[in-house]
């Protein structure tokens, strides 16, 4: 197999750069030279093109030096890699070779509408077509419709989708309803198993249900704390904070500290800067993630596993909601009406001293994302170089949402759909996807966290990656069981009722009654089994995070 730095390969790259070679011809000739698809993708991305937005250079995957997949089938006995992609051949190469048999087919892929869909439209879709002849049709859906639309199409047996972007909480319902197909056989057939060892242990099981695999994990959506270093290191504020609150001005380590510090900073700096922000708008979504996160950080759980009665209205639940309410009061006015984009806007304009949110916050804060015109609706960051990263107060940040790529059971070409997913999520291609400036896909593989290329994207990128890994080590996951959407809706309503003036205890009592009704309607025994299965997943409670299980990953 050739390496990109060999003379023939260098010549090929030079001719591509000089415009003497079309992208398609480049792909054909580079493949003939034995250059891996991951490397081809990197070169094409780095060279840019008229029809594509150029992603940043990504590190050359170690698998490039492996024998070509065409000549050596994947080894099933390959040892699991902790920090490297699998040794049995780049799964991206394996997928490309096998997928050529399906050239001409169009895979229909759902994505959350807007920014999430830019990757398949600008980068991975066109590249996949160049490599295999398989076209990609992107169907953009609002977040709540990522649940409802696949169900509607499945009931109608329309075959409208091949690949579904599924938040993990929806997987049990999709499996029970027959919306998604099991893919264990395909994973084995195309030798993708070892590459899964490269996924952070918190995320590995999120594509599985009742022992079968239904999807490949594709987005590490950990909540983390982002704070303004310039404010937290201001001598006057540090001194005042210490004298007023009796502790140094530092990233808060408990939720009470978070509120106190936010209140202090709002008192000192408003209306120019407020202590905190959040996304509390009903249906945005955000309330349920924040509540589930704090509930478990405060020692609470969702159900009594014996009776399956809801216990969200426990002391821990009420405390969580009261803390959230206190944060609202310490935050920018109108926080109850903010969604995630609204919060980002206020943050990037420098109006907030700290926020917790999804990982794109770190990239946008450094203007890394805004270099692409697709992000023009997000303001330029006024806080470049001023942002520090920390894991959430009380350690247990939520893995809020995230995506697993599943294959629709109604797909007319399961194999083409699966191979597309294998290629997209392979270590080499996924690294390029998570480093696209406009990407909303966040690091989730060990090789992402350790990537030198990613670590050099901005001065603090290494700290950012280390923090995301640490956040995953201590993170908790969303409630994953049938009717998860029903339970989440009830919590979202309870939270917004409290923002509207309802008593937290009463709101949670109502929500618990609603949860019990949902459980009865779905089947109490069935839900009991599902909840028992959920509790076995790492991150289901504060007691079984990856760190608490002694499996924390050190980079």
């Amino acid at each position, binding site marked *: 197999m050739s390496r990109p730095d060999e003379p023939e390969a260098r010549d090929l790259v030079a001719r591509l750069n000089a415009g003497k070679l079309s992208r398609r011809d480049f792909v054909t000739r580079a493949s003939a030279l034995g250059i891996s698809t991951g490397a081809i993708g990197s070169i094409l991305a780095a060279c840019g093109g008229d029809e594509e937005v150029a992603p940043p250079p990504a590190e050359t995957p170690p698998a490039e030096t492996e024998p070509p997949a065409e000549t050596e089938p994947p080894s099933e006995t390959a040892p699991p890699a902790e920090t490297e992609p699998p040794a049995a051949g780049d799964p991206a190469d394996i997928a490309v070779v096998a997928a050529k048999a399906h050239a001409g087919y169009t895979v229909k892929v759902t994505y959350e509408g807007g920014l999430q869909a830019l990757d398949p439209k600008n980068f991975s879709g066109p590249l996949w077509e160049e490599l295999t002849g398989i076209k990609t049709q992107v169907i953009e859906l609002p977040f*709540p419709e990522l*649940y*409802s639309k696949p*169900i*509607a199409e499945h*009931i109608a047996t329309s075959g409208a989708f091949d690949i579904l972007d599924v938040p993990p909480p929806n997987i049990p*319902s999709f499996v*029970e*309803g027959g919306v998604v197909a099991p893919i264990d056989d395909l994973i084995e057939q195309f030798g993708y198993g070892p590459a899964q060892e490269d996924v952070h242990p918190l995320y590995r099981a999120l594509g599985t249900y009742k022992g079968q695999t239904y999807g490949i994990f594709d987005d590490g959506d950990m909540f983390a704390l982002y704070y303004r270093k310039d404010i937290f290191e201001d001598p006057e504020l540090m001194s005042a904070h210490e004298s007023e609150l009796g502790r140094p001005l530092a990233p808060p380590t408990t939720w009470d500290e978070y509120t106190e510090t936010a209140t202090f900073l709002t008192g000192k700096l408003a209306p120019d800067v407020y202590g905190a922000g959040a996304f*509390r*708008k*009903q*249906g945005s979504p955000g309330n349920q993630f924040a509540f589930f996160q704090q509930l478990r950080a405060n020692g609470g759980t969702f159900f009594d596993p014996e009776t399956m009665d809801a216990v969200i209205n426990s002391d821990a639940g009420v405390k969580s909601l009261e803390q959230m309410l206190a944060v609202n009061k310490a935050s*920018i*006015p*109108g926080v*109850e*009406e*903010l969604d995630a984009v*609204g919060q980002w*806007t*206020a943050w990037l304009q420098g*109006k907030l001293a700290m926020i917790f949110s999804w990982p794109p916050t770190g990239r946008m804060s450094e203007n890394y994302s805004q270099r692409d015109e697709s992000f023009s609706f997000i303001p330029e960051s006024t806080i470049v170089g001023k942002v520090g990263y920390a894991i959430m107060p009380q350690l247990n940040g939520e893995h809020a949402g995230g995506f697993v790529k599943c294959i629709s059971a109604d797909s007319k070409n399961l194999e083409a759909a699966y191979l597309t997913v294998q290629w997209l999520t392979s270590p080499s291609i996924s690294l390029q996807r998570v480093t696209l400036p406009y990407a909303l896909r966040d690091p989730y593989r060990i090789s992402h966290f350790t990537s030198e290329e990613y670590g050099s994207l901005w001065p603090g990128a290494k700290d950012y990656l280390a923090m995301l890994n640490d956040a995953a080590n201590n993170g908790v996951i969303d409630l994953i069981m*049938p*009717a998860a*959407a*029903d339970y989440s*809706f009830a919590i979202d*309503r*309870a939270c*917004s*009722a409290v*923002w*509207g*003036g*309802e008593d937290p205890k009463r*709101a949670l009592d109502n929500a618990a009654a609603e949860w019990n009704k949902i459980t009865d*309607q*779905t*089947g109490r025994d069935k839900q009991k089994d599902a909840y028992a299965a959920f509790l076995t997943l790492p991150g289901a409670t504060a007691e079984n995070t990856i760190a608490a299980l002694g499996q924390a990953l050190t980079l």
Partner: protein
Amino acid sequence: MALGADATRRRLSQTASSWVDRHFRWLLVSPAVVLILALTIFPLGYAIWVAFVTYDFNIPGHAWRGIDNFKEVVTDPNARKAIATTAWLATAAVAIELVIGLLLALAMVRPFRGRRWLIPIFLLPLFMSPVIVGQFWALLLTEPFGPTNWLLGAISGSDVNIRWTTQTPWAYFSILLADAWQWTPFMFVILLAGLSAIPDDLYSAADLDGARPRQAFFFVTLPLLLPVMLVAVAFRVIDAAKIFDVIYVLTKGGPGTDTYTASYYLYEQGFQLFHLGRGTAGAWMFMILLSVVSYWLVRRLLKPVEA
């Protein structure tokens, strides 16, 4: 043999021709009948069946449930609250639109300079999608980026921190504001047409009889405008009872379930959570309720004509 075959062919042809002649009218209407059966009757029958079985994405199979789906809707506090909210929101919205629409129509019924420009401007909101209207008002009202609070603060000289879409009763106010902004022109244009149709002779006669303007309004304008008014109100009540888009964009039913209307509740049950049995049962009940209201309004509408 050949003669026999020819005769058979002729006989068959005659039989077919005669059959076509006898059933020609049915053949002509059959495509329309098939379409109606496929697009209306079958879905209607299917919806009846769905309302009486388990049709829930989280529960396999379609077991017979009798009236349990209906019972679940009736006993659901969110559903009851949604019906009450729908009733009063629709009533309030239509009342506001009627009053403002009537005042505008009265102001515009006589020609004046600039009238031909003002009327199309008044009508503009009517041509917008309700989703756009909702988004427009969301951008104006919601903090921290909407200018409304800032503007009110500048006018009043003190800080204004109203949470227009996330606090009761302001959320209701926002919905009524958006709905009235869009649909008052509908009232206005219908009432303007009604006012224009009242003969000037009647006002001259009233004037000769010594009627004051107020008396002319109550004893000439209003009685003659009433049938038109009832048409406008009937259309708007039926439409306002189905209000969905503005709520979907502005409040998402919140805070809590305070701004859940029947349509929003049914949408959530049916198309977000896929409790289709329950959602369909609720939709049937809502349709029957709305039919009763519509029937009553139409009866009122026909009364003056019968008299």
